[in-house]
């Protein structure tokens, strides 16, 4: 009985240690998933947002990107193939939040591939955007390239992906 108790104790302690390790030192994939989920949360907004809240959210959103981000976006009514700095991203995000009535963004399926050196990664994901006043959500497959800069995973490239070629 004593041996069984000891074995159970050791197993429990080992499990606790593994759990603590994953909490204190999460793997890059988990960190990236958390950041992208946070990005979706910040990108969402309601119609009754104040100007101050808009600006704070736009700045916060820009903080997820590197100083220079490459965009390769092709949507039915919007196309952009250039790069933007953080200020431009803040301005664009602020403009969108000012004009649109509300937006709810979700990244329901995220696949992250981390390069072996653990300094860059690619996230292939589905963007589901519910625009206030529109009946059907906009669904688009996208690819984000991320790099670890100063200890933080920042988006360096954003591109749309054609699900059916």
């Amino acid at each position: 009985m004593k041996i069984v108790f000891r074995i159970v104790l050791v197993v429990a302690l080992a499990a606790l240690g593994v759990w603590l390790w994953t909490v204190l030192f999460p793997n890059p994939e988990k960190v990236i998933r958390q950041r992208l989920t946070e990005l979706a949360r910040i990108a969402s907004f309601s119609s009754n947002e104040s100007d101050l809240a808009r600006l704070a959210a736009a700045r916060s959103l820009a903080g997820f990107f590197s100083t220079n981000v490459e965009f390769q976006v092709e949507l039915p009514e919007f196309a952009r193939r250039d790069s933007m700095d953080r200020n431009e991203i803040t301005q664009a995000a602020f403009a969108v939040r000012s004009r649109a009535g509300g937006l709810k963004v979700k990244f329901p399926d995220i696949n992250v591939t981390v390069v072996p050196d653990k300094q860059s990664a690619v996230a292939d994901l589905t963007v589901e955007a519910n625009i206030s006043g529109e009946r059907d959500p906009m669904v688009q497959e996208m690819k984000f390239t991320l790099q670890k800069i100063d200890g933080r995973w920042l988006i360096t490239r954003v591109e749309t992906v054609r699900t059916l070629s």
Partner: protein
Amino acid sequence: MAQDQAGQSNAGWKQPRLPRWVRIAVIGRNPKVTLVRVAILIVTSFVVFKFILLPAHVEGISMLPNYKDRSWNLVNRFAYLWHEPRRGDVVGIRFSRAVTNTPAGIHQAANWLEPPHVMLLKRIVGLPGETVAFVDGHVLINGEVLDEPYEKYACDWNLPPKELGPDEYFVVGDNRSMSWEEHTFGRAQRSQIVGKAIL
């Protein structure tokens, strides 16, 4: 005296019992067995609807009139375990495919354990190796007109021939009355096909 009376009335009080047939109908003859059955039912439902038959809420009009907007369907992930997708099958197609560098086996296992939350619902018209084209709204497979009894709305789409690779299927919605620019269709990789719609 008062205490005695209270004690007597407490001892004499009985919880009202439900009629026997109600108890049998609600919790069964043996509550323990019922509990086990409920647990099995919950676990089975979870496994079936999480990993095998994926509930799909149809949003949009691209599959009209056969699959109505806001209707529900189920996508059977076991449909293609023993045979490959066939022409005319309505399939669920995953959006995000993993651009992973993990081995194929692990990749497939991960796909199985994490089914997609968002899918496209489309019909297969072209099979691997075939050439698909649209001429005056008709689908041409290797130059021959495809009979499509499910297509109810006429269209005038014209698209140049596309040759499918060894692992590619050509999928399109049933509602061709939409302009082709607004319609999502084209080549899908086999790995993107999640399963077959069963309703």
